[in-house]
């Protein structure tokens, strides 16, 4: 074991290497590592945030969907009610119309009937009077004639 100037040379060499490492090796690597670490933790945080907001959006979406469904159901119900209303309205209106038509028709028929009866009676009276005149001759006066005619008409 012989100690010589190698010791001093090695000490100098060590100082040089340590200085190089201190100035040019360690800080850049460390800074890159720190930066990456920060980037990764930022990324994880952002991912977590995105996850949260996705969850939130999902909840909002579900809520909106439920609301829309309820609204749709309501609208449908209203429409149904309205439709049945329209149908019942229409049917009652039609019924009324039919009634009216029926009434007016029967009135008309009645009128026609009466009119026809009247006519028929008149004609019949005339025929009867004529016939009677012919049978009786001119025995019956005009006034008498009128009176008989009226009576007959009333009777008929």
């Amino acid at each position, binding site marked *: 074991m012989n100690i*010589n100037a190698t010791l001093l*040379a090695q000490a100098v*060499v060590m100082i040089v290497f340590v200085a190089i490492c201190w100035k040019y090796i360690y800080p850049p690597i460390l800074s890159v590592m720190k930066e990456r670490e920060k980037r990764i933790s930022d990324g994880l945080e952002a991912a977590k945030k995105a996850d949260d907001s996705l969850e939130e959006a999902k909840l909002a979406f579900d809520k909106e969907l439920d609301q829309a469904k309820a609204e749709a159901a309501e609208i449908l119900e209203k429409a149904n009610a309205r439709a049945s209303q329209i149908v019942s309205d229409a049917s009652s209106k039609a019924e009324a119309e039919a009634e009216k038509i029926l009434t007016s028709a029967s009135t008309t028929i009645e009128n026609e009937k009466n009119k026809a009866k009247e006519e028929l009676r008149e004609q019949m009276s005339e025929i009867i009077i004529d016939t009677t005149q012919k049978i009786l001759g001119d025995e019956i006066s005009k006034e008498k004639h009128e009176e008989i005619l009226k009576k007959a008409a009333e009777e008929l």
Partner: protein
Amino acid sequence: MASELTTESYISHHLTNLTCGKTPDGWTCDPYKVDQMGFWAFHVDSLFWSIALGALFIFVFRKAISKNSDSNSAPSGMQNFVEMAIEFVEDNVQSLFGSVKNTLIAPLALTVFVWILLMNLMDLVPVDFLPVLAGHIAYAVAGDGVEWIKSPESFYFKVVPTTDPNITLGMAFGIFILTIYYSITVKGLKAFIAELTLHPFGKYLIPVNFVLEMVNFIAKPISLGLRLFGNLYAGEMIFILIALMLFFSSIPIGVLGFGLHLVWALFHILIVALQAFIFMALTIAYLAMAHETEEH
């Protein structure tokens, strides 16, 4: 070659550094003139691997930066490894250093950890591979011109820098200087001196306190360096001894040696990583102590 190769020469070959230094005749790397070099000699092989592996560390980590210059893309391949290493060091610094803000500690710990890990890993390269290769290359390149390279075997080349006490103590020395620097700048010179002189016996026994605290203070870097050196030196030694089993030229012992090699290499992976970690953890701990202004 086989005739001159003895057990002792094999072991000593593996434990001798390629040493270059100044002799009265001028600069040389002749292994027979190491005694004349004195203190001003350099273990060229240790320093070569130390610098090469340190440069590898810088290169790999630098490349990871140029790749991950934007933090958008997912990290991949080497970058993952680099970031794992940095995270590991950050965790250790956090737990040992607490809230004290000092931007040097983490890079220092990272450098020390990765660098020592790489140097220790050289221990797992088969013991003879690189020295023999280096010997042959040196002999082929400079065998004619340089008189001390007489054969590939006369070229010493030790590949594990952390089995050289100069390397481990050199690093511990660097950390020692840093602890002194931070002790003085953070606590102030007065508090630092007080810490060394006023404990544990109060102000009336300052010389005794100083001697005791000084031993404590000096022991830290020395133990730091020697612990790493001792562990790796012992590991290397066991690899060499297992490799020696092949000298018996008997097949059963050779097979046993192969098996032992495998077992020891697997176990040594643990030591390699553990010692690098311990050196790093103690580096952080010593520097943390330098920042603390606690009372004993």
